[in-house]
């Protein structure tokens, strides 16, 4: 595991009106590590993701992606710098087919930008990469099915696919296994493990099975503050974490 | 100077109130239900025609109540048998439906009442000058307009505060299924709100038809301006609609009451555009001639810099 820092948050805060939701988060995430963020509901995990991905603007503090400041940039600029995210609620192009969803996700990274002088369908590189992705997501059979008609698990898989399509070096996944049955969740974990071999993963998850299965490191966010950031074993043993998050019923 | 200001304020206020009477119903229908109702002014026109015709038999005061009710019922029928069906397809079809409806209403009015303006006049009881200011008379009817507008505002305000109709409608825009699963009869609420909105438009017509002219083109002329009021005021906000109406009324009246152009401003800085140059037309354009453009300029600027309008809670 390389020691380069992929994502560095320094003194990050976010207020909504008078409510302080993120209260000074400092976090370093190393390149190629799988980092899971856990914490009680409303602790600010999704907000943190929104700040990093540019969907929200931070009240103060800085965010660096491989040493470059990204706070204050709009989402599409952040994305172009190699950071990609999925959503807690499935967020796809519902009317497009699987194939089209993936192609759309690929266009920018393959340098087509706002081109209106070339046809999408004749871009071999995009097509090939999309097919490769479908294969990996086990969606080849459904390539012409509109996203809205996929099953929930398939939609989640496609969501992940669209997220990684651009070849981003840092992935943010928000509760990727929510709403899945045990076996489906396990499949998803496998998929995530596979696709994150050479990139950095930051993930929010409530399913402790998944958390401890996948994480290299875990950070615990409570009321907008990181109360622990450590290896899975250490976090599991941490009394404060048990109190604030796990409750009595530790799995 | 004082005279100009007083008159502009008074006239602007009255004109604003007329605008408000027209747009308050649309605040419900467009602002809350999200229905881009281009036929709104048609219901206003129907209100005027109904009141005129009923007034011939019942007198003005009865017609003042009956006409809005009759038009409201027509509105309910339009919602029940037309819009409800179209609603599921989205906003553009709704818009086009009301577009077509506006044509149909106008043609029917022409068919039944003819092309010439109606002789729809101020009722005797209100036909006297109330007071005189700087030598200009103020007709009592204008004050009546003011009273009606204010009571419309109060009525609407109470309706929205006291009932949950507003909440139900807003919630239904995103999750109608869940609203009904919580025990609310969504289609019925929609129907009555639409009926109420059209009834308000008709009430505006009963009064506005007298103040302005009752003729088949009246709907077409008032069409777009009411959208300006609703959007500038902020979607779904009656307070906003009231403020926006008065603002537009006063703004327009002021622009008409003073002779002003960019050249005046330029003079302050000792700069003038040569009369032959390309921008001279703009430079020497009188404020009175720009006045009709002002509401739309306000609309565009408002949407660019503050898309939720003056008092709107949400962005459209």
């Amino acid at each position: 595991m390389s020691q380069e820092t992929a994502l560095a948050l320094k003194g990050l805060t976010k207020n909504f009106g008078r409510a302080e939701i993120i209260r000074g988060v400092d976090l370093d995430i190393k390149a190629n590590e799988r980092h899971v963020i856990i914490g009680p509901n409303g602790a600010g995990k999704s907000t943190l993701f929104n700040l990093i991905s540019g969907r929200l603007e931070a009240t103060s503090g800085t965010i660096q992606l491989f040493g470059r400041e990204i706070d204050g940039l709009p989402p599409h600029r952040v994305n172009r710098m190699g950071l990609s995210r999925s959503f807690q609620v499935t967020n796809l192009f519902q009317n497009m087919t699987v194939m089209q969803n993936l192609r759309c996700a690929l266009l920018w990274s393959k340098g087509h930008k706002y081109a209106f002088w070339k046809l999408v369908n004749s871009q071999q590189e995009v097509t090939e990469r999309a097919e490769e992705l479908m294969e990996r997501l086990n969606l080849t059979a459904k390539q012409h099915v509109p996203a809205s008609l996929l099953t929930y698990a398939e939609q989640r898989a496609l969501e992940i696919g669209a997220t990684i399509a651009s070849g981003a070096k840092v992935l943010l996944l928000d509760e990727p296994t929510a709403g899945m049955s045990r076996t489906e969740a396990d499949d998803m974990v496998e998929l995530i493990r596979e696709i994150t071999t050479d990139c950095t993963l930051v993930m929010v998850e409530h399913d402790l099975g998944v958390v401890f299965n996948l994480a290299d490191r875990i950070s615990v966010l409570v009321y907008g503050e990181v109360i622990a950031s450590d290896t899975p074993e250490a976090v599991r043993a941490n009394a404060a974490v048990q109190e604030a998050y796990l409750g009595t019923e530790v799995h | 100077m004082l005279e100009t200001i007083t008159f502009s304020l008074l006239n602007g206020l009255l004109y604003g109130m007329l605008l408000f009477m027209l747009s308050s119903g649309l605040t419900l229908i467009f602002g809350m239900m999200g229905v881009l109702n281009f036929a709104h002014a048609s219901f206003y026109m129907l209100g005027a025609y109904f009141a005129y015709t009923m007034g011939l038999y019942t007198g003005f005061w009865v017609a003042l109540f009956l006409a809005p009710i009759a038009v409201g019922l027509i509105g309910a029928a339009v919602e029940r048998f037309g819009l409800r069906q179209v609603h599921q397809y989205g906003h553009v079809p709704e818009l086009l439906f009301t577009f077509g409806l506006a044509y149909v209403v106008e043609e029917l009015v022409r068919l039944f009442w003819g092309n010439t303006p109606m002789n729809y006049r101020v009722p005797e009881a209100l036909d006297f000058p109330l007071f005189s200011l700087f030598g200009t008379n103020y007709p009592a009817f204008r004050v009546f307009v003011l009273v009606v507008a204010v009571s419309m505002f109060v009525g609407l305000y109470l309706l929205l505060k006291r009932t949950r109709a507003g909440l139900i409608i807003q919630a239904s825009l995103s999750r109608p299924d869940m609203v009904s699963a919580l025990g609310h009869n969504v289609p019925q609420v929609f129907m009555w709100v639409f009926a109420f909105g059209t009834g308000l438009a008709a009430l505006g017509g009963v009064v506005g038809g007298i103040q302005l002219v009752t003729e088949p083109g009246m709907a077409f002329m008032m069409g777009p301006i009411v959208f300006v009021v609703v959007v500038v005021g902020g979607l779904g906000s009656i307070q906003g609609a009231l403020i926006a109406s008065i603002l537009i009324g006063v703004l327009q009246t002021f622009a008409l009451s003073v002779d002003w152009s960019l050249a005046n401003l330029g003079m302050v800085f000792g700069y003038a555009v040569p009369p032959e140059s390309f921008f001279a037309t703009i430079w020497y354009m009188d404020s009175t001639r720009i006045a009709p453009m002002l509401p739309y300029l306000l609309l565009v600027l408002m949407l660019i810099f503050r898309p939720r309008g003056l008092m709107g809670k949400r962005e459209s």
Partner: protein
Amino acid sequence: MNTTQVQTGAAAGGVGRSIWVRRLWPWLVAVVIAMLLPLLVTSNHGLTMISHMGVMIIFALSYNMLLGNTGLLSFGHAVYFGLGGYMAMHMLRYIEATGFGMPLELLPVVGALGGLLFGLIFGAVSTRRAGVVFAMISLGIGEMVTASSLMFTGFFGGEAGLFGNREAPVSLFGIDYGPGRNVYYLVAVWALIAAVIMFLLRQTPLGWMANAVRDNPERAQFVGYSPQMVRFFQFVLAATFAGLAGGLFIVVDEIITDETVGMIQSGLVLLSAYIGGIGFFLGPVVGAVLVVFLESELSSITDAWLLYFGLLFVAVVMFAPQGLFGVAYQQVMSWRAGEWVRSFHARLYATSAMLVFVLALIAVIEKAYHVLRHWNPQEPMPLFFVTIDATSMVPWLVSFAVMAGALAVFFLHARPLLRRALDSGEGA
């Protein structure tokens, strides 16, 4: 869009030919129809009408780049049509005055540049947001441009508009553009070129992302696109084509007035696109043809034409929200699926019931106009090949009875029958 088809078509050249033929035939049909039309329509007026159809087709297609592809509802698209037209008109007058050597065939390009210019200006302020905000900004800009048209009389020529003579410029191919027929061919060629380009634009990265932004702007941001930029580019392109249509328009009419930038024109293009069907490339084409035809012909047939116009739109919106082309397409699909075989009689039955109702309704409307609008209602009135007295009760009773009967038959018998016929197919 069938992605695999194209891909194999492009990859495997040999097999590809038949696919190309399959994809090209609608265009070939369009070319053939466009070329043959003037043989059917020979009057000057008719030629102007079909030329207007060509212009409107470009205009409606450009509108659909906004509404159908990008989800932007505009109430002011005529601004670009009209301003483009004015630009072209000024160029035409300049040519007339100075003998400048620009050929007439290229005049529409001036219109397109005008559309482009104003698209850039107004697009920059209006495409920040979609939805109601965009719609209302477009309404505001439309009204403002309309209002300025009477203020800047130098540019707009006041309410009298501007005139030009299309015979003044030279022709690239030495064609005499006096006769309406030659102008029609010019329009047809430009319409085809514009349609092909607009069709191809849908398949480009920008075209795809326009769809993506329409459906889910947020997600589009997270695949690296700025929705605002996508909308802006689409807007500018649409304005350019609208300007092209405007440029052609002045070649046809040789006059341009401020109504070309006005609300009615903006409304008309919205209606055309929607009535035809915004979900299909050919939808606006159908809509444009129909609207131009109705506008120019219906008014000479009946006094009640605006009423019919309104009713038609209401009916289409209520019963065929996918547009007329959409309905036709559905029918073709269900024909292919073999549903027609089972339900042919039921369809015929239901359609005839509806048709009878519509005819009776027309009779009622015509009679109402006769009684209420004619100076002498007693005068015998021709109606569907018979002559009646509209003031007597009998014809009224007959039409109302027929109307009620047809409705009853439709709702109580024909529609359930049709449903059953279709359902039985589903079960199988």
